[in-house]
């Protein structure tokens, strides 16, 4: 077996490499956003890009999220592959109109698609308050035509971003800012890391309970599963969705039919969150395989608060996941 050369890569570096590699391989790929050029991006994802790719392909824009997404749509119509950065994913709100009304519907209405990526840092845990911490996936969940990706591992961040750039449809790519520099993995230095959209991944196998989750909650769920295994001897399966739309219902349902128990964990608030949709789909597809009610562990239904005590209260913790898992296993 030929050994593959690897290098320790952070989640953030994996994203940077995906962008660089796609831009090097395909000159139609370009980026636009606020402070991404001269400054190198608020999180330094695009550091050095302006020097390497020049101002035609690394475009500093005014603070105009609607105009950024609009320009990405128009460029996509013309055969370019735009990657638009939202400085924080919270600021996608001013671009909502452009995304849900223009980008998502353009292929359906006119036959001309809008293959573009809108990427940005999401998620709480960094003590950043209500406007730099949100998980916005549910805002867009009810909009056919959009795809949504939320990687947890560096490998997936890289592989899915590359696939998103190549995808023919608008993709919202949610990078969890808490993972940017905390996740480090050995990634191959050569050969393509490419992960297709729409495929969930079994992060940790098990036969007693299924946890479906994504983003930073994958790691909290896995830690909780390890504890349940060590302390109770039960094997919890953790499924990392990776792509939220299209949702990999098949993988979820197959796991639930095996374990008979389902816990859904996400960082976004509960009401109208992805957990509700997954619950409905499992009820439709696997009701008679269930041995317990489906449970959800999510953020509480409030804005993301700022103070450490408040934010920790707001976010689901390992303990919450362990106790919900135990409840389900004992049901």
């Amino acid at each position, binding site marked *: 077996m030929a050994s593959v050369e690897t290098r320790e890569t952070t989640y953030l570096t994996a994203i940077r490499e995906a962008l660089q590699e796609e831009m090097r391989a395909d000159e139609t790929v*370009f980026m636009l956003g606020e402070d991404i050029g001269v400054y190198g991006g608020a999180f330094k994802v695009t550091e050095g890009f302006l020097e390497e790719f020049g101002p*035609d*392909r690394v*475009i500093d*824009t*005014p603070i*105009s*999220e*609607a*105009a*950024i*997404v*609009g*320009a*990405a*749509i*128009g*460029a*996509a*119509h*013309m*055969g*370019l592959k*735009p990657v638009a950065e939202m400085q924080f994913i919270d600021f996608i709100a*001013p671009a909502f*109109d*452009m995304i849900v*009304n*223009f980008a998502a*519907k*353009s*292929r*359906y*209405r*006119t*036959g*001309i*698609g809008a*293959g573009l990526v809108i990427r940005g840092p999401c998620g709480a845990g960094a003590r950043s308050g209500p406007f730099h911490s949100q998980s916005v996936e549910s805002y867009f969940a009810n909009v*056919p*035509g959009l*795809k949504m990706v939320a990687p947890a591992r560096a490998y997936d961040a890289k592989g899915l971003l590359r696939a998103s750039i190549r*995808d*023919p*449809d608008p993709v919202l790519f949610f990078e969890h800012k808490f993972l940017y520099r905390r996740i480090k993995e050995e990634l191959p230095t050569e050969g393509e890391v490419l992960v297709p959209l*729409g495929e969930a991944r079994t992060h940790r196998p098990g036969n007693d309970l299924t946890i479906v989750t994504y983003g930073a909650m994958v790691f909290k769920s896995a830690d909780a599963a390890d504890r349940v295994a060590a302390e109770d001897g039960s094997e919890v399966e953790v499924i990392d969705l990776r792509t939220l739309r*299209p949702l990999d*219902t*098949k993988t979820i*349902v197959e796991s639930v039919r095996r374990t*008979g128990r389902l816990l859904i964990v996400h960082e976004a608030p509960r009401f109208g969150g992805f957990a509700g949709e997954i619950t409905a789909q499992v009820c*439709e*597809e696997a009701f*008679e*395989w269930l*041995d*317990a009610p489906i449970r959800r562990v999510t953020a509480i239904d409030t804005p993301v608060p700022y103070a450490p005590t408040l934010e920790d209260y707001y976010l689901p913790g390992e303990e919450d996941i362990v106790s919900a898992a135990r409840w389900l296993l004992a*049901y």
Partner: protein
Amino acid sequence: MQVTRERRSLARGSGISPYQDGHLKTLDRRDMRSLYRLLWLTRALEERLEIIFKQGQVVGGLYRSLGQEATAVGCGYALSAGDWIAPSIRDLGALLARGIEPHDILRQYTARGTSLCAGKDNTNHFTVPELGILGPISPLGTQLCVLNGVALSFRTRREPRVCFTFQGDGASRTGTSHEGLAMAAALNLPIVVVLQHNRWSFGTPSTAEAAVENWADVAGAYGVPAVTVDGNDVLQVYDAAAQAIARARAGDGMTIIVSETYRMLGHAQHDAQRYVPDEELIAWRDHDPIRSFETYLVEFGFESETSLAEVRAEVAAALDVATDEVLAEPYPAPGEARSRVYGNAELDAAIPWTRGEVPGYEGLVTARPSATRGTTRQSQGA
């Protein structure tokens, strides 16, 4: 920065043609005929749409550009092959100038499966890359943001192509309009924006929507030049459009053209415009863009009353044929509602049916585990 042009109106023609200089030198007798035909076609096609609207053949609303045809036609005619245009709702004439056929418009308004939007969207919401047309969507102000991206692609590829769009005075108040203008100016994009000061925005006068007296002033906020034209004077519009296009093509960036014009009908067919003062309508009726152009063409020997009548008859005959043909065409098949949501056919195929039968993916809903059903729960006596 602001350039305000002297308003010279065809209707007040002094007997001396004011159009012997600048870009108008390039307009010959054939162009004059084409402009007239486009103006008349716009009006006649809309009248035809109104007739079939009253017959119940139009699906949804009908919006007309009566009184504003000259701005759309003059602008559309000034563009070259390879340029792109994004219309608003009262710019039918520009689309016809770009090569859109009456059939296309009739199909759109009657929701035919053969329409450019395949029956999935209405009015002028079609995007046709071959003709350089970017379809707007209903949320006002958005198309400029998207057109910026088209212009950006021209700039990136060093192509001397230009984008052109229209904004209503009402639409110009949206956030997306402002963002679009700000970005086009900041990135020095090859764009021309026509601001249609037609005095009304649905049921609200523009004086109540904006504290702007001279609409060319808005350009100052973006650091770009503006020119004001009599929007009911097709030659003046053409001239201003041609100059702004040349400026954009030369790499000198965006120009705003303010068209002083008037919405002669209500917002749409359902709106009887009872809120409009009679004096206003009467005054503008005397400034009809088509009638004044006819006067001009005859006065300066380009056409005769007879030749103009021939054009009108030819247009009417063409519209008779187009209307009959289109009305004979079917609506799209119902199942087409589920097509081309995604760029991957397999994802379209996987769009679940949401009513009636039990859902299932890839036929996985099969035998139910009735034997084992609820075993854990029962054994726990729960």
